[in-house]
């Protein structure tokens, strides 16, 4: 996991608003992507992830709000240096794979020779199986997905905005892609923002997470910061020889649940975990004692539920 001291914010989304036919899609979305960091963009279906990314890429116009790249409003010139993977995947089905990548790179201003060698390189790196001269439609869906990713990378972008890049990939594909994103961020210093429903993956890969719900950012920060933010203070205690309700003597402690022989106790602000530990030791050998570190999906559910 990345260091808690974040890099300079390079991509800034500031107070984005967007309405579709009277339905509010974005209601003041703001967040930033620091240099060389991977930011996970998490939210339920219809929460506004795709709309936000489309606005960042300029394929959709915001009703209000701005997108800044290195403190400059994002315009056509800057955008050409972005790498994008849209949620609705799609390349020319009848165009040859390699030719297609070269074409897309050239549209973004890459010279022909560079585009060619870069396309070849990426097809290898992403382990796309098949003839580079094959038509796109003859490839398996997983391979098409990898070509789509290659299309986002082929012009050596300054920033990557990827909408659900992991959906549709097999476990090997997930590892390959995760590796590519890591090296883009750490070796080339490219900031990456991607959305995903695979929260374990986001947790593993991202330096920072942005949670969006109903068109608003409801939480953001490193996983550690999100954990610190959480409302419930839960501790897991396992003392096999303990009796029932031994914790009742400590004020502010209540039973939150049971888990595999252990109890999960919720402590309110006044309760002291050390006092709880002393009490547990008095009951017998303590096998397990510690704060419950919620997974991102638990945090996510908790934040969304509020």
């Amino acid at each position, binding site marked *: 996991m990345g260091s808690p001291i974040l890099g300079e914010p390079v991509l800034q989304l500031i107070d984005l608003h967007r309405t579709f036919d009277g339905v509010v899609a974005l209601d003041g979305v703001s967040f930033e992507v620091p240099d060389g960091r991977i930011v996970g963009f998490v939210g339920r279906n219809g929460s506004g992830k795709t709309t936000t990314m489309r606005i960042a*890429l300029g394929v*959709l*116009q915001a009703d209000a709000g701005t997108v800044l790249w290195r403190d400059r409003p994002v315009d056509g010139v800057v955008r050409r240096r972005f790498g994008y993977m849209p949620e*609705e995947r799609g390349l020319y089905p009848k*165009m040859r794979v390699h030719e297609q990548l070269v074409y897309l790179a050239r549209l973004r*201003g890459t010279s022909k020779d560079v585009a060619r060698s870069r396309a070849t390189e990426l097809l290898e790196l992403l382990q796309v199986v098949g003839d580079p001269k094959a038509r796109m439609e003859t490839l398996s869906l997983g391979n098409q997905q990898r070509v789509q990713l290659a299309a986002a990378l082929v012009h050596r972008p300054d920033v990557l905005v990827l909408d659900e890049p992991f959906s549709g990939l097999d476990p090997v594909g997930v590892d390959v892609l995760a590796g590519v994103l890591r090296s883009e961020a750490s070796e080339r210093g490219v900031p990456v923002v991607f959305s995903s429903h695979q929260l374990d993956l986001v947790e593993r890969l991202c330096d920072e997470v942005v949670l969006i719900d109903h068109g608003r950012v409801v939480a953001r920060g490193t996983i550690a910061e999100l954990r610190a933010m959480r409302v419930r203070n839960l501790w897991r205690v396992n003392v096999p020889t303990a009796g029932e309700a031994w914790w009742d003597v400590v004020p502010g402690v209540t039973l939150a649940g049971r888990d595999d022989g252990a109890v999960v106790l919720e402590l309110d602000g006044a309760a002291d975990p050390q006092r709880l530990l002393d009490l547990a030791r008095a009951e017998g050998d303590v096998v397990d004692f510690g704060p419950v570190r919620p997974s991102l999906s638990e945090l996510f559910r908790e934040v969304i539920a509020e």
Partner: protein
Amino acid sequence: MSDAATDRGTWRLVARRDFWVRLRERSFLVSTLINIAVISILVLARASSVATSGPSFDLGYVGSPAVAQGAVELGHQTHVEVRLHGFPDLGSADAALRNGSVDAVVNGNELRGFEGVNATLGDLVQASARNLAVTKLLDEHGVSQEQRDAANDPAPLTVDVLQEAPPDRAQNSAIAFIAVLLLYGQLFGYGIWVASGVIEEKSSRVVEMLLSAIRARQLLLGKIVGIGVLGLAQLLVISGFALTLALATGAIDPNLLKTALGTIGLVLGWFVLGFAFYATLFAAAGSLVTRMEELQNVIVPINLTILVSFFISIGALQDPNGRLQVIASLLPTSSALTMPVRIVVGAATPFQVVLSLVLLVGSTILLVPLAARLYSGAVLRTRGRVKIREAWRSAA
């Protein structure tokens, strides 16, 4: 070198892709072959009618040949060939009528046919009979030859015209017919290719990748230019072929080579202008729908416009100065088809040509940003059909 920082000039890349992709498509080859086949048939038909040049008849007579001979002379004046066949009696003449070796038989005061008598031949024979009767009357009254000649002046009225039609109008209108047929096919066919190309990018979703890289206007421009250049190249090939064939078969007089080349130039020029106009409309229409099956619904108004213009142009071959034809040759919605016809048959005044050009080019220039706005507002909406108003408002 193109400026890598902006997307200016990326339309050339788009155009190149569209050009080569369509060129390699089977439908391009098929349409080229069909065009060449149709043109060949038209040219060959023309060649054979030039060779026979005018109708010809076989006329029989029984007894005096005077009326029949008169018909031959009159036929000669109106470019109708009449061949004579004398018969000793009515029986053998009727037999010849039955087996078709003669078209009609003059028998005294009677003109006999098999099932009927061809109107042209009938008119000639009747006129010849009238002439004989009049001559007989004049003989009886002793009218002198001078008096006869004066009354018989073949052109008693002098002819004056407000606007002189060119002498080769008939042959020119044959060339113009082929020209308008070609133009119609190209404007229509390549316009639909633009619309379906837009839909193809929309339904395959690749358009979102494209629009994240370049602006809608560049994409639109590139597509129209790429497909238009292909249409132009095909026109060049087809008209080159048609011209060669026409000269080789004698379908057109070699003296008219200049007219033919001029016509080809006109067709190419008006194709470029008309295509720019219609293709912009086709592209905007295509961006409103997502599936090929819906294409027909949105292009109906454009199809009808082109079809109506085509029929007006066909009308202009006969009557190039009719009010409808003149108006149609000026309006940008129809001028690309109608004006070239009026130019080729020599009916358009320079003022009309200039006005028509200004209107067509001007309206295209106005149309492009409007269509680009519709296009960019509609092209990312991949669910169902987009209303024009919605597209307009959601334009980026």
